[in-house]
């Protein structure tokens, strides 16, 4: 079955009001072309369930596309706070619920196993459980009849749509990821609908030659789109590094809501192809990594600093 569609068609699956989750950890693996396309299509009122996809979270907050966040940590590692995310909470425009990484990843894992709840030893005695009012973390502290308690029971979470970005995939929706896989396996297992963007769509025989890189089996994936540099400005291990020049600029403009609004309008005004054309071939090639180490060897100190 051929599941290949365009990025535009893929993004149309997400409708206002839905809950979504994206692959990503720090400055890597995030389906940012998809996120920009969602913003281009004007989708809003979304619930983001997110462990570490800081880039998706901050941009969707900046676009006022979220109604609610269920999350564990959003920060720009090495560059400080996600300003749009912080502002959204400080201004009271987004509802939210805090978890630890393990607690939220466990909620995904439980959904991926078809279970209604999970048990964790995290969160005990912390204010993550003590949250106030209607948005307090839903939990139940439990002493199992088999001993070994207490544990904290948390409901599983199955987002309406999970979007992952991979190194390569095939027309049947198999997705390969190289390097650390963040929370992809648990998210993809949990999603009611799973969508994939990949750097390239290849023949299935290419995947068969290295099946250990396949982290999402095609049977779980509804639709897939080929989106080169689809993680930009985040990076893909062994392909291209995070665009630290862009990250610096983004972090600087996002300190001011008006300047950020201009920036967002600029990067979402055009489709992905035009976005890449605007970045230019030179810049894209400069992001390609040293094939042996899997990262860029020539980043300057300025590239590292916010």
């Amino acid at each position, binding site marked *: 079955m051929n599941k290949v569609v365009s990025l535009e068609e893929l993004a149309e699956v997400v409708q206002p009001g839905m809950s979504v989750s994206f692959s990503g950890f720090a400055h890597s693996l995030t389906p940012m072309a998809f996120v920009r396309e969602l913003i281009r299509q004007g989708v809003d009122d979304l619930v983001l369930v997110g462990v*570490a996809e800081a880039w998706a979270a901050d941009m969707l907050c900046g676009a006022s596309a979220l109604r609610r966040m269920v999350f564990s940590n959003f920060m720009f*590692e090495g560059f400080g706070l996600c300003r749009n995310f912080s502002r959204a909470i400080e201004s009271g425009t987004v509802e939210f619920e805090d978890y630890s990484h*393990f607690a939220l990843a466990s909620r995904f894992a439980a959904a991926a196993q078809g279970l209604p709840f999970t048990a964790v030893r995290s969160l005990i005695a912390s204010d993550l459980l003590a949250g106030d009012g209607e948005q307090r973390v839903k939990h139940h502290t439990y002493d199992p009849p088999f001993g070994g308690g207490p544990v904290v029971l948390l409901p599983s979470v199955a987002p309406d749509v999970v979007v992952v970005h991979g190194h390569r995939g095939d027309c049947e929706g198999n997705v390969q990821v190289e390097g650390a896989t963040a929370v992809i396996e*648990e998210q993809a297992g949990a999603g009611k609908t799973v969508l994939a963007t990949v750097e390239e769509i290849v023949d299935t025989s290419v995947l068969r030659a290295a099946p250990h890189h396949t982290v999402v089996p095609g049977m779980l994936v509804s639709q897939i789109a080929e989106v080169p540099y689809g993680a930009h400005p985040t990076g893909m291990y062994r392909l291209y590094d995070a665009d630290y020049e862009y990250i610096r600029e983004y972090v600087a403009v996002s300190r001011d809501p008006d300047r950020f609004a201009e920036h967002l309008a600029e990067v979402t005004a055009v489709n992905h192809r035009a976005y890449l054309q605007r970045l230019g071939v030179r810049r894209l090639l400069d992001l390609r990594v040293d094939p042996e180490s899997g990262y860029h060897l020539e980043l300057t100190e300025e590239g590292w600093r916010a």
Partner: protein
Amino acid sequence: MNVTSEEIMVSAAAAEIADGTAVFVGTGLPMLAAYLAKATHAPGVTLVFESGILDPKPRHLALGVGDFRLMSGATSVRGLYYVLSLLQRGVIHLGFLGAAEVDVFGNINSTIIGGDYRHPGKRLPGSGGANDIASSARATVIMCKHQPERLVERVQYLTSPGFLGGGDERERSGLIGGGPRMIITDLAVFRFDPETKRAYVTSIHPGVDSQAVIDGAGFKVEIGPDVERTVLPENAAVDFLRAMDPTGVYLRGAKELARG
């Protein structure tokens, strides 16, 4: 040799890492402490990173735990859920934690500054793996700046548990991890009273006045009867750290020294 307070912090943290153990490491000074320990007295330590990376031999300093530079030479590269499960499994001996706020019982806030949870003055990134480390690592080491707004009597929001309200409150809570072993600041080292679980000063860094340690904290500082001077790192250790971080990504003080 001029040694910076950051280098003293890193060296004190490295000394806590025992050979043959498994250590959960985050971005920044703990990363350097882990590399120093592994290169010297703890070659058999397994370093575990939240991003899913086990025991790398990085050739270049990583900007964070998600940085591809951290994958170099790793013995295993997995996912976040897998490595955080190791904590809950109880096989991580030591975890490192930073803090926007840490209180006298070693509880940590990395969620809000000012206001309340629903209406914070400033919203911080949130727990991440910190609550998991604080809950389930067999012991933790907290590293942060020595500032009155950071070292507080009680945290505004308890993101990650230390000894809760002190005494045996943590033991009774059912948390499996042993809790904080120490707080390392840029001025001093605190450990926790075995009974009350209140932090008290066990060593003050060379060149630091004890009054600065007292004045620099937001809680009432107790100085232990056997207080010592923090051991300075050997020159070779300082050289190692500066070679690991030549541009001062984490060792900003060393960079300033180099500039004169």
